[in-house]
């Protein structure tokens, strides 16, 4: 053993320095802005690791894809075509409705809504911190993403971007304990807030008075308050209401609309342009 009596820095001193540096990091991470260049470059540093860890999954899914039979592909193609036909029918209506909506808004004197910029991102399946709900996507600062952008899938709201590297970024899911989404009930426009509980298939409504008009099956959509999520995207459906008069608030639970445990493709939305409030 070379260093049994060797002269090096003592372990205690090393530990002291390491603990001190870690505490500085923890405090710095908690109380500073997220979108600095230091952080982006730190997140970029581990991007190759993430891509490498995702590789086996890609290989397997590529293998599975190339082993699909012709019949499977044909039937899938057929189903997709039918879906597209139905959706394009709705789209024709939609264009008419947006025109009408713009006209009505003009009559009311409020500003017209602008279309959001958006980008499609794919999830890299890598392991994340077990204490939080998050996923990694294959887009980053290179594609113009920044912290706090809303992320949705085909069904509804998924979460928002938290840590952005140059080629990867992290999406904090709406079921995470630190995430809250401002929503309103689609049926009666009552505003409330949905909080994550750390469960992948359940969220809760925070501070709901007993008198609030909420029913099982109510659809919650984003209210647009807070500025992170654009208005009108479905978030969750109310599944359980517990009006215990003994507790200060009613306990209302809901199930996320987006299938958070099997998402694969996501859409990242840009924040809406600052709306110009017309004074007339």
């Amino acid at each position, binding site marked *: 053993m*070379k*260093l049994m009596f*060797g002269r*090096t820095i003592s*372990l205690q001193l*090393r*530990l002291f320095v*390491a*603990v001190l*540096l*870690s*505490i*500085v*990091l*923890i405090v*710095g*991470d*908690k109380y500073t802005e997220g979108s600095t260049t230091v952080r982006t470059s*730190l*997140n970029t*540093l*581990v991007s190759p*690791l*993430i891509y*490498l*860890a*995702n590789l*086996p*999954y890609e290989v397997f899914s590529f293998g599975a894809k190339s082993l699909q039979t012709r019949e499977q592909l044909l039937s899938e193609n057929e189903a997709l075509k039918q879906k597209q036909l139905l959706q394009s029918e709705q789209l024709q209506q939609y264009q008419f409705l947006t025109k009408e909506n713009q006209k009505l808004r003009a009559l009311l004197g409020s500003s017209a809504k602008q279309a959001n910029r958006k980008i499609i991102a794919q999830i890299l*399946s*890598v*392991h*994340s*911190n*077990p*204490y*939080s709900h*998050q996923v*990694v996507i294959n887009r980053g600062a290179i594609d113009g993403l920044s912290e706090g952008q809303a992320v949705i899938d085909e069904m509804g709201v998924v979460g928002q971007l*938290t*840590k952005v590297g140059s080629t990867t970024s*992290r999406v904090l899911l709406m079921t995470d*304990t*630190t995430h809250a989404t401002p929503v309103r009930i689609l049926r009666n426009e009552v505003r409330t807030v949905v909080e994550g509980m*750390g469960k992948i298939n359940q969220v809760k409504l925070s501070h709901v008075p007993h008198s609030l008009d909420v029913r099982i099956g109510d659809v919650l959509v984003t209210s647009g308050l807070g500025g992170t999520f654009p208005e009108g995207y479905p978030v969750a459906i109310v599944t359980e209401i517990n009006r215990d008069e003994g507790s200060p608030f009613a306990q209302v639970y809901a199930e996320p609309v987006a299938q958070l*445990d099997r998402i694969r493709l996501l859409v990242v939305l840009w924040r809406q342009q600052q709306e110009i409030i017309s004074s007339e």
Partner: protein
Amino acid sequence: MNSRHSFLIGVSIFFALIMSLMPLPFSFEPFRPDWVLLVLMYWSLAVPHRLNIGTAWVVGLLIDLASGSPLGVNSLTFSICIFVTASNFQKIRNFSIWQQAILVGLFLMFYHLMQFWLNHFLMDVYFNPQYLWPVVTGMLSWPWIFLLLRKYRRHFRIR
């Protein structure tokens, strides 16, 4: 010569990092052992003059970045664990593999409780006994990691 040893140790840590980030089927996810910490523990017992608290801190930071936990949590817990093993390496080395496995289990338990406590403090997570599964799986996989890395170390004569 020195750099060759460090490089080979680095390679094993790199593989452990990839293993700990690789996707697993959803039902196996809670049982994933902490590969990186186990590998670091092995090297800190085998060659404590090469791998020490500094390395553990840097690797912990990499884990934090790659797994999206609050920065500094893993570096802190890794450093403390490696401090314990590195300061007692002469004692721990003399134990049999099974005794070592039990000790490693204790260290892992300590690591996970610290992890939980820090995360609770930073993000208000609540305790779930499921969080302690890696302690058991880590303890059971220690003998295999030990034997594998010992073979690796002897084959490449890492000292």
